[in-house]
């Protein structure tokens, strides 16, 4: 059996939504170079919808694939839905990750949550309970 699923390798080889949004409404960064994974998520939000999302990642194949998949899962979705993204959903959408790589999917979930929190900080009027 290969180390990673076909889907992980596909998202690693051809990552979706790679890049930067210069005038992002929310930016989230998690991880540290010491552990070997850093993810940065940029969000463009209009009318409560994630209109655009980009990512930059320093990390292994599963970190890149998790970032890519997480951005795909929230793109075009209402912010309320994006907030509910779990690492399990990211890992499942990738047809699974090796046990010791599950933290990559956790980082993806956290990066997106951080970016949304940053968005709310910049746009407190949007925050709903």
């Amino acid at each position, binding site marked *: 059996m290969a180390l990673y699923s076909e889907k992980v390798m596909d998202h690693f080889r051809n990552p979706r939504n790679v890049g*930067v949004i210069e005038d992002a409404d929310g930016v989230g960064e998690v991880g540290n170079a010491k552990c*070997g994974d*850093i993810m940065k998520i940029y969000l463009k939000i209009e009318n409560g919808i994630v209109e655009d999302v980009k*990512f930059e*990642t*320093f990390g*292994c194949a*599963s970190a890149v694939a998790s970032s890519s998949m997480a951005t795909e899962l929230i793109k075009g979705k209402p912010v309320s839905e994006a907030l509910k993204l779990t690492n399990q959903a990211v890992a499942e959408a990738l047809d699974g990750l090796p046990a010791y*790589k599950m933290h990559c999917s956790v980082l993806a979930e956290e990066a997106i949550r951080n970016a949304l929190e940053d968005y709310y900080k910049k746009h407190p009027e949007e925050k709903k309970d």
Partner: protein
Amino acid sequence: MFIYADNAATTKMSRAAIEAMTPYLTEVYGNPSSLYALGQRAKDGLEDARERIARLIGAEPREILFTSGGSEADNQAILSATAIGAKTGRRHIVSDTIEHHAVLHTLKKLEREGFEVTLVPVTPEGLVEPEAVEQAIRPDTCLVTVMTANNEIGTIQPVERIGEICRARGVLFHTDAVQAVGHLPLDVRKLNADMLSASAHKFHGPKGVGFLWARRGVALTSLIEGGAQERGKRAGTENVAGIVATAAALEEAVEGIDAVTKRLTPLRDRLIAGLSKIPHAALNGDPVRRAPSNVNFCFEGIEGEALLLLLDDRGIAASSGSACTSGSLDPSHVLLAIGRPHGVAHGSLRLSLGEDATEEQVDYMIRTVGEVVAYLRGFSPVWRDLVEGKAEFVL
């Protein structure tokens, strides 16, 4: 193009080794402990291999003990020396920070059992300084263990000098020569060593075979009980075919050392020069005191596993000291020991050339590694921070 550039991990078996072993799988399958002719023919093959291997490293046949590989040989050497030491209350061991885990983990185990271990630091080039070893030796030191050549960064250690010091101080000296046997000229008598570990699959022999050379007079402790094989020091029916193949592989390897070194050194240096042109990249290890096949670099701003997988897509099989390739959170202990920060150590690449490497392959590797590193940096937030001046370049 497919380039196998991970010869420090394992090597392809040589034709000579395969041909030598085949009759012992098909016809001479007897147990060397059996008394009938078929068993004795296997025994003859085994003892012939032992003699040839001994001759190739300057040892006596009875000083060679076959094991399942380099790790077992390392374990047995260390546990034997410490058992000898414990008898006279000597419970201190000297080693260094860049040994293979087969050594370091065995030392950790001994620490839990009450032994004291001093790991001398290495220079930024990965060199173990003989003076540092000398200073670390205490009256209760029972063993010094320093590898002949490092498996990750290729640094060749001054083992002859270290052995000399140990001899003068009356301390047993073991060297893990897994990366050296069959690759560097080596004579156990000149090494001033008492024990030496080797692994067959690093010199085109089979996996699952290694040997421990222990100078006559060094009492070995058996790790595996259950039979009188290997003079009672290693139970279990001998891997006759594998051992015969090991002798054939080692003969060929030792015979070729001079020619291979002459051929590989300029190729290695060409690869090092080419990769050095990648911005913010640095060679790990000593540029001169270095195994002729070893190239190891750190590239700032990227992670090694991603680099390896993309190189694999482009036909290059290599390895990395990144945490992600080790299944742990920490990158290579060797890279940390030579002073690379965690973030930089994650972005390491080891290319270990085969004897048949060509200039064309080297140039392809230089070009491809450069492209993949640039691609990964293109979406690395670490690299962005470095380029935008938010973080400082280390390399």
